[in-house]
């Protein structure tokens, strides 16, 4: 059960879901590989930003 609550379980799922959702936005004039990579890059940047917010909120844990 604890496995399902862990960030290591949710993060890849969220990245994949975000990539699939955002990829169509980058599809204009881009092949699928590039659009999906751009979507993944955007999701990754948001995740990185979320991580930095966590550090700011709970610095003693890092």
């Amino acid at each position: 059960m604890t496995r399902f609550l862990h960030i290591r379980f949710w993060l890849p799922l969220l990245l994949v879901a975000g990539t699939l959702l955002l990829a169509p936005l980058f599809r204009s004039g881009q092949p699928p590989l590039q659009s999906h990579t751009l979507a993944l890059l955007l999701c990754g940047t948001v995740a990185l930003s979320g991580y930095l917010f966590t550090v700011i909120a709970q610095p003693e844990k890092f």
Partner: protein
Amino acid sequence: MTTTTRVMFPRMPRGPRQERHYLERPRQQGLVQRAVVASFRKLDPRQAVVNPVMFVVWCGTALCLLLTVEPRLLDGQAGAPERGFNALISLTLLATLLFANFAEALAEGRGKAQADALRRTQARTQARRQGADGSIELVDSSDLRRGDVVLIQAGDVIPADGEVIAGVASVDESAITGESAPVLKEAGSDVAGSVTGGTRILSDQLTLRITADPGKGFIDRMIALVEGAERSKTPNEIALTVLLAVLTQVFLIAVATLTPVAGFLQDAPSVVTLVALLVALIPTTIGGLLSAIGIAGMDRVAQFNVIATSGRAVEACGDVNTLVLDKTGTITLGNRLAEEFLPVGAHSVAELAEAALGASCFDQTPEGRSIVRLAETLGAVLPFAAESASGIDFSARTRMSGSDIPDGSEFRKGAVDAIKGFVRSRGGEVPEALDQCFERVSRLGGTPLAVCRGADVFGVIYLKDIIKPGIRERFEQLRRMGIRTVMLTGDNPITAGVIAREAGVDDFIAEATPEDKIAVIQQEQKLGKLVAMTGDGSNDAPALAQANVGVAMNSGTQAAKEAANMVDLDSDPTKLIDIVTIGKQLLITRGALTTFSIANDIAKYFAILPALFAGAGLEALNVMKLASPQSAILSAMVFNALIIPALVPLALKGVKFRPLSAEQLLRRNLLVYGAGGVVAPFVGIKLIDLAIVALRLI
């Protein structure tokens, strides 16, 4: 200072500090090799994630490596030239990560090497455990538990930390303290009643009650602390981590939103260029060196034979405003010597010497022995048979000691007030000459000890205090740093005033009791000040716990060591001043490198921004006249990577400490590390750019 009776230790005179062996200094070569290996291991994302700045660099490196393998991943038009540039940027970013990891690994390695030196003192040994019925069984030291009773004989290694419950023996503690002179341990004594596992008994035998379970002894805790196993971020480090994370967040958002802006200018930069810009903007220098600075601070304290229980304690030293110091041993040499006998009333010097000898024959303190020596020099003979008499120990409450003999005579020596009270309680009268002698000795900066036999006052012993050489200059330095010094002494106000003036302390508390020590600390803390103090006795434990920085002497009691947040293995109270200096140095180093890190980002803007927007009319910003946009970006990245190992020695060694006020230090550091941090990268990036062009890397 402990107020219980001091036992005479048959210690050799302490040699100069450089002659004693400190914790073994790690071998540099092995350290570097181990640090190189560890810096690769630290690339593991689970370890990298604890450092927000370097984790962003880690993510950027991973992305650039992907784009090196497949440059068309994000841009269908990208080709071979981009792959070469991406590879160079990826390698530079990887080097940045490795250099930062190396700095941390090197600092950790030094701590681990010291832990190994401590661990070598922990030999497993056999112990004779005494059962409840008195039977003895031979057990392994790892089987001993708190509360077990063991017998130790000459030549045995003490199997675990314990309290002496019977016997007297000399113990070699050099494995821990580096001090070769044996120390006397005996039951019923505050300071001399505790022993540390790993030390060796040299003579006689002791019965010990074990006070720590396996793995929880003094050395185990010290090893864990030195290794950094229990290292947690200090408040200052946490504040700096938040600042660095905020800056990184701001720049991440700025760089992420740059693409649409650049698209509007029809000059969209590549993702690798944006990663390079992000890494140049975020404070990687301090991000990479932050933990190394903290670990090195602990290490510097350990090199001084002081074990800090946390980085917080070392850091608190840097903010200390008030030092509470015992006079004896810290400001004056520990051994006061009897200089002169001053008789009062009809008594002669010889009579006073005889009474003083009678009152001091059981006193094994250096002072007591010096009184006996002076009296014997004057031809005095003990006026009773020592075997038939009983000794009266000194205590903080009675402030006197002496001997009782079977015929009812009571020989006493002690503080003049205490002796006056004693004489009056026995129906005697105090001669006026006693006060004159008291004032005379006090004005000389000496300690007057009155001597009486029952209700009869014989006179005063002049104990001479010797102020430690150079202590006045140390206090002057502390004053320049804005640190106030308070001297605590059991002496009368006149003597205390004279010593305080000679030593140059800011304030003093005379006739101080253990309660006064905690009161003065609380009073200072109410004024918002941070207080540091030293102590060794159980009665110092509350004050050590109350102080922001409490340094316990290793020769002290277990209670004192547990209450304090630092333990001085050499038991040298003067070290408090050095520890404060190290704490200040730690904070100054962190501040200086943060200033440098943020300041040297400025030059990187001038390198990367014109390169990013070459087509948008920002060429005027290319003040360094860098060869090409790509060489400009690469030069900035190479400089960014190289500056970390260049600053590793400074991070580990610390910025040179100067006894200046906070304002003066800030001004100086802004000039040296702020202005230097702005100028150095301009020169460095230009030189690297010239080298890149010369080597035709781009």
